[in-house]
């Protein structure tokens, strides 16, 4: 195995163009996988590329560089829009994993149980990709093409996660078999913008309840205009065609459907609470 550590994006793209590279950022998904088979012949560590780490706002958009860790997210000064992302950041593995693991890596790994995905979907995140053909932006909902599959062409590298700025407060809830260091049974990310105490715009996504996390567009529409007191009833009555959970070692499909519905209502109400320090 050879490890390449380019210090510029150009040299990273040039190495990637040669083919056969496994991209490495924090490595928290790559290293445990090394025991499962032959190690990859070529690893491309992007964590040393200048300008790829950090969170900044410009032109009505937030930019999370591809080498930004979950600890960077937790420590960043961000508006309530990101409260859900901060809560999700605290659920990724443990402190040591949050110190190494990156937001972009969580997306590229594309686990159906990735903690970062539902909340970033609710934030309408775009994935910035650079490759031989230049730069392009892909909505996260299209980027994650299936379990462990992303819409990246050969030679392309994720360089940032982009989030449109706007009103609203975020929330995130995860259910696992225990409180800490656990793969989720179901999880919900929500971003709610309110006007005069009622929902102006709801954005809700569910993870671990299907091959990929999904936005719940039907529920989002049904919630427009709702007061906090209406939320539980509306969610209980909602049709949720996006949920397609399986029975596995962590939970049955029936339990996941029931738990997800409870988490959806709780996350929405949490995102409507008076702003607090995340």
């Amino acid at each position: 195995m050879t490890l390449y550590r380019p210090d510029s994006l150009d040299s990273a793209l040039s190495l990637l163009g040669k083919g056969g590279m496994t991209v490495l950022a924090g490595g928290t998904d790559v290293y445990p996988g090394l025991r499962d088979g032959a190690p990859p012949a070529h690893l491309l560590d992007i964590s040393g590329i200048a300008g790829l780490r950090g969170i900044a706002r410009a032109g009505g958009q937030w930019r999370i560089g591809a080498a930004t860790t979950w600890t960077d997210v937790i420590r960043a000064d961000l508006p309530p829009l990101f409260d859900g992302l901060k809560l999700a950041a605290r659920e990724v593995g443990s402190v040591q994993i949050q110190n190494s693991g990156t937001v972009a890596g969580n997306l590229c790994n594309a686990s159906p149980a990735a903690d970062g995905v539902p909340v970033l979907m609710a934030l309408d995140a775009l994935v910035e990709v650079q490759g031989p053909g230049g730069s392009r932006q892909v909505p996260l909902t299209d980027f994650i093409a299936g379990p462990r599959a992303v819409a990246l062409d050969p030679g392309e590298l994720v360089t940032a996660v982009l989030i449109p700025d706007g009103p609203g407060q975020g929330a995130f809830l995860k259910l696992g078999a225990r409180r800490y260091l656990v793969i989720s049974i179901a999880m919900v990310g929500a971003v709610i913008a309110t006007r005069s105490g009622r929902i102006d715009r709801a954005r809700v996504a569910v993870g671990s309840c299907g091959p990929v996390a999904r936005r719940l567009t039907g529920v989002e529409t049904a919630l427009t205009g709702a007061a906090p007191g209406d939320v539980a009833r509306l969610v209980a009555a909602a049709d949720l065609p996006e949920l397609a959970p399986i029975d596995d070692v962590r939970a049955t499909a029936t339990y996941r459907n029931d738990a997800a519905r409870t988490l959806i209502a709780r996350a929405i109400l949490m995102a409507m609470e008076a702003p607090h320090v995340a």
Partner: protein
Amino acid sequence: MTNITLTVNGKSVSRDIPDETLLSEFLREHLRLTGTHVGCDTSQCGACVVHVDGKAAKSCTTLAVALDGAQVTTIEGLANGDLHPMQEAFTEHHGLQCGFCTPGMIMASVDIVNRYKAEGRTLTEKAIRHELEGNICRCTGYHNIVKAVESAAAKM
């Protein structure tokens, strides 16, 4: 093979190692610093926690070559003549049973206390339990571990 130079426990070390060498393997097999334990080898249990550039890291989840130039502190580098206050506290409160998880527990705990002190935050029992989520004691001796961390935090 790549040549790397790291500062481990304050001493500069330079070695030619295969690129796939994990930091845990580098410490144990190349430097013979066997205080860092490997429990699960899948970045869950925390027995292998060391400090890399002042932050807690799971050494089984880090390639040594990627750390060229970094400062690494292991359990062997914690005592400075006398035992570190965290080591004293684990002894005093019997914060261990079989002891396998102890090096990682101590390294994680020192990181927790340092972080809370630097940020001016109060380290409550609840916070200690939450912060130790990445370290698993399969003897389930958590009560005394938490007592030890509380006690050391008051002295650090």
